[in-house]
């Protein structure tokens, strides 16, 4: 059991203390007195934090999302609950996707609807669609209804696949810490 989180993208420097507060809360609990050093876990590319005792970074992820800061987090297999691993990728305005992963990081998906789709394409055609509108498998039934309404088979197949098959994992943008620039007031000299 372990979890890790990578933070990238634009990060305002003034948000770092709050980020660390939320991370500390996830790792040690509230008011623990422990402090996690931001710089210790930051390299040229990302802020990377990993812990063997943590399963999720709920507070930190909520904080990052509320400030539209990109991150990807991953949880490994939980030996006590038998939960498989998962990975979450948040890219503001682009995606907030949870992937199921095996121990070696391979992505997997639930096959039930796709198994139904495979069956639907085998047994249902325009000519016999009416016979399948009460089929026990909901995907077969939906496909038969779609054809009876004059729908295009390809549109149906694509919609099921887009719904069930997660997109490729995109790379996280590199971390860019934005420092507040102090405005310098120009003082006009008298007489000019």
């Amino acid at each position, binding site marked *: 059991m372990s979890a890790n989180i990578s933070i990238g993208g634009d990060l305002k420097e003034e948000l770092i203390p709050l980020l660390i507060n939320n991370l500390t809360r996830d790792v040690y609990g509230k008011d623990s007195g422990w402090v996690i050093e931001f710089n210790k876990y930051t390299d040229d590319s990302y802020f990377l934090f990993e812990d063997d005792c943590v399963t999720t970074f709920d507070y930190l992820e909520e904080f990052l999302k509320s400030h539209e800061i990109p991150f990807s987090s991953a949880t490994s297999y939980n030996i006590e609950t*038998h939960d498989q691993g998962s990975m979450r990728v948040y890219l503001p305005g682009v995606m907030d996707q949870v992937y*199921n992963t095996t121990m070696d990081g391979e992505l997997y998906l*639930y096959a039930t609807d796709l*198994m139904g*789709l495979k069956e639907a*394409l085998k047994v249902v055609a325009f000519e016999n669609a009416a016979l399948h509108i009460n089929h026990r498998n909901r995907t077969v039934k939906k496909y038969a209804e779609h054809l009876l309404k004059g729908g295009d088979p390809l549109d149906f197949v694509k919609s099921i696949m887009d719904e069930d*098959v*997660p*997109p*490729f994992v995109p790379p996280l943008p590199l971390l860019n810490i934005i420092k507040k620039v102090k405005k310098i007031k120009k003082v006009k000299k008298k007489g000019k």
Partner: protein
Amino acid sequence: MSDSIWCKLRIGGEIKKSLIPGLLKNLKIDTGDTITFEDFTQGDLFKLENEHSGQFTETERFLEKNNISFARNSDGNYEYLAELRIFIPQVVNVAFPLDPSGDVVMPAEKLRQMIDSISAVTFETAAVHINSEKPYVKEFALHLLNGGDQLSYLKVHLDDLVPPEVPTLPPLKIITRSKK
């Protein structure tokens, strides 16, 4: 599979009474226990659980060799997903990976590559993609150039990549040899 993984064996379909001693012998090899066939026959199936082995290696081999239907569930661990193996002679011999709640899962990557190839290539652009480094893009481009369509391409790959529906094990039936 490594040790200390729960597994369950269910046997159904037709089984000759004369094969039962051989079955029990193999079960003893797999579990270390002496098993009475009747004690584990509940309802329509023979059902046996084991806490350690992860699978019933010898018994499964014996059942397959003698064309006896069975299903074996195994828990997952830090290395493997949970699994359901079903063998029904002349119908199915498949191991389905499962998530912890028992739903069938499958690897996502090849399917995603296939879907993306369909978005990337059209009849008009197919010729441009026939030397693509992405295998599915190249394959789909060639498929279109050979007069194929999107739906037939999807059907072929769904057949290939998506597991079949999980079949139900037939009820157990002991066949006794009748005396002439």
